[in-house]
């Protein structure tokens, strides 16, 4: 019977000591331990969340990078295309211009040739006329001396002229 009869003294000591232990542990052990645990859990959670966020940001960055790259590629292609186009255009233009210029020069040359030719012909005509006059002059002068010789002379002159 004694073991199931609570002793008053022990209840007293148990109550006092347990409450003191409870108070001391609550203040100096459980409070810092639980708050540290919570702090650590919170920091782990924040770290995880931040890692997730960083991953998301990385993905976004990668996507935007890729977009930029694609845009740049497109731009480059466009620029290349434009440059080619411009180059061909320029070449064409130059070619056209050259042809035109050539044509114009040929025409000019032709004109010049024609002019020269005309001038030459005129000069020939002039020279021929001069010669004719000279011949005529000489004939006229010979006629005054001998008519047979005059005829011979005229013939020889004419022969000369023909040779010319």
């Amino acid at each position, binding site marked *: 019977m004694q073991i199931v*009869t609570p002793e*008053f003294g*022990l*209840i007293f000591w*148990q109550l006092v*000591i347990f409450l003191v*232990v409870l108070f001391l542990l609550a203040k*100096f052990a459980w409070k810092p*331990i639980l708050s540290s*645990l919570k702090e650590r859990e919170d920091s782990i959670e924040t770290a995880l969340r931040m890692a997730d966020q960083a991953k998301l940001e990385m993905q976004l960055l990668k996507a935007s990078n890729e977009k930029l790259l694609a845009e740049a590629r497109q731009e480059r292609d466009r620029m290349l295309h434009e440059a080619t186009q411009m180059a061909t255009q320029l070449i064409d233009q130059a070619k056209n211009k050259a042809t035109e210029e050539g044509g114009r020069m040929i025409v000019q040359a032709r004109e010049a040739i024609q002019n020269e030719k005309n001038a030459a012909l005129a000069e020939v005509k002039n020279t021929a006329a001069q010669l004719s006059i000279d011949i005529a002059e000489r004939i006229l002068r010979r006629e005054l001396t001998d008519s047979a010789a005059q005829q011979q002379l005229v013939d020889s002159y004419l022969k000369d002229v023909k040779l010319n």
Partner: protein
Amino acid sequence: MLLMKRLLIALFCILSLPVFANEPAATQAEATEKEAFNPGEMILHHIGDSHEWHWFSTDNNHLTTYLPIIAYRPGQGLTVFSSKRIAEGEAYEGLKLEHEHLVAEDGGKVYDFSLTKNAFALLLSSIMMLVVFSIVANGYKKRQGSAPKGLQSFMEPIIMFIRDEIAKKSIGPKYERYMPYLLTVFFFIWFNNLLGLTPGAANLTGNIAVTLTLAMLTLLITLFSSNKYYWGHIFATPGVPMWLRPIMIPVELIGVITKPFSLMVRLFANITAGHIVILSFISLIFIFRSIAVAPVSLAFGLFINVLELLVAILQAYIFTLLTAMYIGGAVEEHHDADLQIGGGDGAAPAHGHGH
């Protein structure tokens, strides 16, 4: 197969123990001169409290630590002296021990505040707890934000288990207020259960005064944190017809008391029973007066002792879990759905009336 056989033998031994235990007691009356071994008396002496700390005895000598007697007698005031003065049954300052019970010679009232073996063990284990957990708390201060180490890493999973599996699940969002009590009660019971298994130590958690105090604290915390739903459940149990209330209200009120009562008895009985079983196995050697019984006794004693190591933490867990459940039942916010179902506790497993 071998284990089964051993268990059967163990069972047989336990069942037949009272016969052996009674035999010497019966013969003792006839032959009082022959000092027969009385296992019942020995066991009760070992599991009970005492005013001195008896370590061991040889044939002629006893190694005993005498603890202070502190007695208060109305009119005479406080008396303090060493228990050595009354150890052999003599009286000192009008006080004497009768079966480890302090009484006054003149039959007056005595309030015994002595630092008994249990009170002394309580002091020692409390100091041990304070030392252990200040080391753990220091670890958190020293390694703020980094991984736990040593004693800290041993205690951390247990503390987290109590927080996550016991407090959070049983109490709910208001668990934080009750964490200090739950943690203290868990480690107090566990430490003292383990210390109680140490040879020569006191059987503190197997003492009804200690479990009574712990259960009372649980009851007080439950009552002081109870809300209107808790009392509503007691005085107007949902789903119970009006005419049944005169029966239901006393039943529910008794339920308030039986919860801590069961806590008190469960811890006391489990720990005391474990000690009794171990001591019984050891007693077998002296009952048979044969050294040949020793190996068997020791094997079973060891088996039960290892089992008691498990029981030590299990009982601490159960006490803490049930305390958390009772608190959880008191602070729980009921939903309207409960009233419609009217099933009472069936729908809410956290109540646990049956424990």
